């Protein structure tokens, strides 16, 4: 028999109230944990995904929209721009690598993106890392496709399989398929843990041709002749030879002083930072609410223990009559508060991670961002410690009541 056992017995004796109290702490701590993991991990993942792109050049419009639609396939792309932009940039002395993207239709919600083969041979999506092929080979002809790992996993497409895309960026109920034009899968990319895992890469010609066909489906036979006006692109990804060209090139493009083209150049990392500043503000509001939930939970510990005090006066008096010191009685009550808050905090932390873990499918489905939910941060140690301290602080009030219990009165009240 020791103090902790008494504490345990007391908690077990009022198991329903104890469980509800622990649950309320769990909710608060779980909420804070989940929000923080989501914020930290997604910011990290978003940045990771964008590191390969120094500059994105795209049609004029929202710079954030351009970034999100190009790097993460979130939201709709802005209007297309003429291929001339790509040709000019490719030949610019300051540019080391230019990769065009043209967003076409989709296959089961995975975007079919037209690009050039340099994407596979030269582009580094992370510092020093190029796309690798898991099986098959990169495409060499029109209407051949290289698909991301996620696409392969979700659709079950294998090399050699054929598929036809649906109109639009995302599929919708009743969308018609380009049944006449089928793509053939030539290769599957290794997993990159970036949004590229969710892309179907094809040649630009394939995308243009589909559109050409689409616009002339009144039965014309000149399917394969694509006019220059049809050759449009959605974005160009740029890597420069030196960072010193950054500012000038960006200004030239943005101020319409670049060979007369009408486009914008954005820095994805900057856009992401701005986005997360906004998200950060929303986050702070949610966090404040979550902290309030924890505080409410702490108050519920106080209420739960305090409410039990009246029934416990007699038992406290009995323990005192057996020789228990006032201080020990106080300690028992404080330990109870500590145990309830500690249990809630630890379980809440686990629940927060578990929630993110179970949500990760949904999150990566929405953003192509991979979040594990298993990254623990120092903050959680503070969160748990803080919650336990809070539990101790609130239990001081009933503990003082216990300390002050009039033993003789409570012993005699039974007689």
């Amino acid at each position: 028999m020791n103090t902790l056992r008494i504490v345990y017995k007391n908690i077990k004796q009022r198991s329903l109230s104890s469980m509800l109290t622990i649950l309320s702490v769990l909710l608060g701590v779980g909420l804070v944990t989940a929000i923080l993991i989501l914020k930290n991990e997604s910011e990290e993942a978003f940045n990771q995904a964008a590191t390969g792109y120094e500059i994105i050049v795209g049609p004029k419009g929202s710079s954030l929209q351009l970034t999100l639609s190009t790097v993460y396939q979130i939201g709709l792309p802005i209007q297309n721009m003429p291929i001339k932009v790509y040709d000019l940039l490719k030949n610019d002395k300051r540019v080391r690598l230019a990769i065009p993207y043209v967003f076409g239709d989709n296959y089961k919600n995975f975007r079919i993106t037209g690009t050039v083969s340099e994407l596979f041979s030269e582009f580094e999506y992370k510092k020093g890392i190029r796309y690798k092929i898991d099986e098959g080979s990169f495409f060499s002809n029109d209407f051949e496709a290289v698909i991301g790992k996620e696409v392969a996993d979700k659709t079950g497409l294998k090399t050699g399989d054929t598929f036809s895309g649906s109109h639009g960026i995302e599929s919708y109920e009743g969308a018609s398929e380009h049944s006449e034009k089928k793509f053939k899968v030539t290769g599957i990319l290794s997993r990159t843990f970036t949004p590229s895992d969710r892309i179907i890469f094809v040649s630009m010609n394939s995308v243009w041709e589909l559109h050409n066909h689409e616009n002339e489906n009144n039965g014309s036979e000149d399917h394969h002749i694509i006019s220059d006006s049809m050759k449009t692109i959605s974005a160009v990804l740029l890597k420069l030879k030196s960072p010193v060209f950054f500012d000038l090139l960006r200004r030239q493009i943005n101020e319409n002083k670049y060979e007369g083209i009408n486009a914008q150049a954005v820095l994805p990392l900057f856009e992401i930072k701005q986005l997360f500043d906004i998200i950060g503000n929303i986050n702070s509001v949610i966090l404040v609410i979550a902290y309030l939930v924890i505080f409410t939970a702490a108050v519920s510990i106080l209420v739960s223990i305090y409410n039990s005090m009246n029934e416990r006066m007699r038992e406290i008096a009995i323990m005192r009559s057996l020789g228990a010191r006032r201080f020990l009685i106080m300690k028992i009550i404080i330990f109870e508060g500590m145990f309830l808050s500690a249990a809630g905090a630890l379980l809440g932390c686990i629940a927060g991670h578990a929630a993110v873990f179970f949500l990760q499918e949904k999150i990566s489905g929405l953003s192509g961002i991979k979040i594990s939910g298993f990254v623990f941060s120092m903050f959680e140690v503070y969160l748990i410690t803080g919650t336990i301290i809070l539990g101790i602080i609130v239990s001081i009030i009933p503990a003082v009541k216990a300390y002050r219990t009039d033993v003789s009165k409570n012993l005699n009240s039974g007689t």
Partner: protein
Amino acid sequence: MIKVKLIALTAMSFFFLMKKLLLSLLNDKSEMLKIKNLKKSFTNSKKEKFSIINIHEFSVNDCDQLAVSGESGSGKSTFLNLISGILRPDEGEILFGDTDIAKLPESRRDLFRARNIGYIFQTFNLLQAFTSLENVMLGMMFTGRTDKLRCIEALDKVGLSDRLNSKPSELSVGEQQRVAIARAIVNSPALLLADEPTANLDKKNSGIVIDLIKNLCHENKIILLLVSHEKEVVEEFKLQRYFSDINKSEVLQSN
């Protein structure tokens, strides 16, 4: 030279020991508990002070079993609470041997009570969340010792060795009272205080409980001080006193 001193010292201490032993043999009814000029008053709800205990002199000898009868409201429970050190008197001495517990600070009184005094109340002696055995172990916990075997033994002595793991709610009132007795004697206290221990029991159980208390106190050489307002209970004891003869407080005794 040193040798001579040593022998003298040994002889002297031997002599003293023998003297003490002889004295104790001659005077084996030494006064174990002795109370002098004990006064306690309470304030009522109208903030008026009223005296409840005023005892000029009271003592119990080693191995005595004293039953005190008195009306309810006469201050018997208060008297026992003073002796056990739960309450502190306004004035007076409560001597256990040489120790005046009225002078001890509270934490020392608590420890003294844990080690030397067993206490049995009318009802609800037990903690509901704990089994019989755990309740008895709780009685030992505050002395700073743990001896599970001894606790099982104590429960065996009150005939409950088969109910070790029963919660109070699973026991009859008589059985609960027997657990309380086991808990009160488990530390081999010098003194057992029993505050109307049979008030909630039927005749049969009342007899069992009183016999148990008497026998266990006798076997373990524990002084028993029992208070009750029931004549039949007090008449079971050879040593009987009226509380009104002990307590001379002028408080209006109710009923």
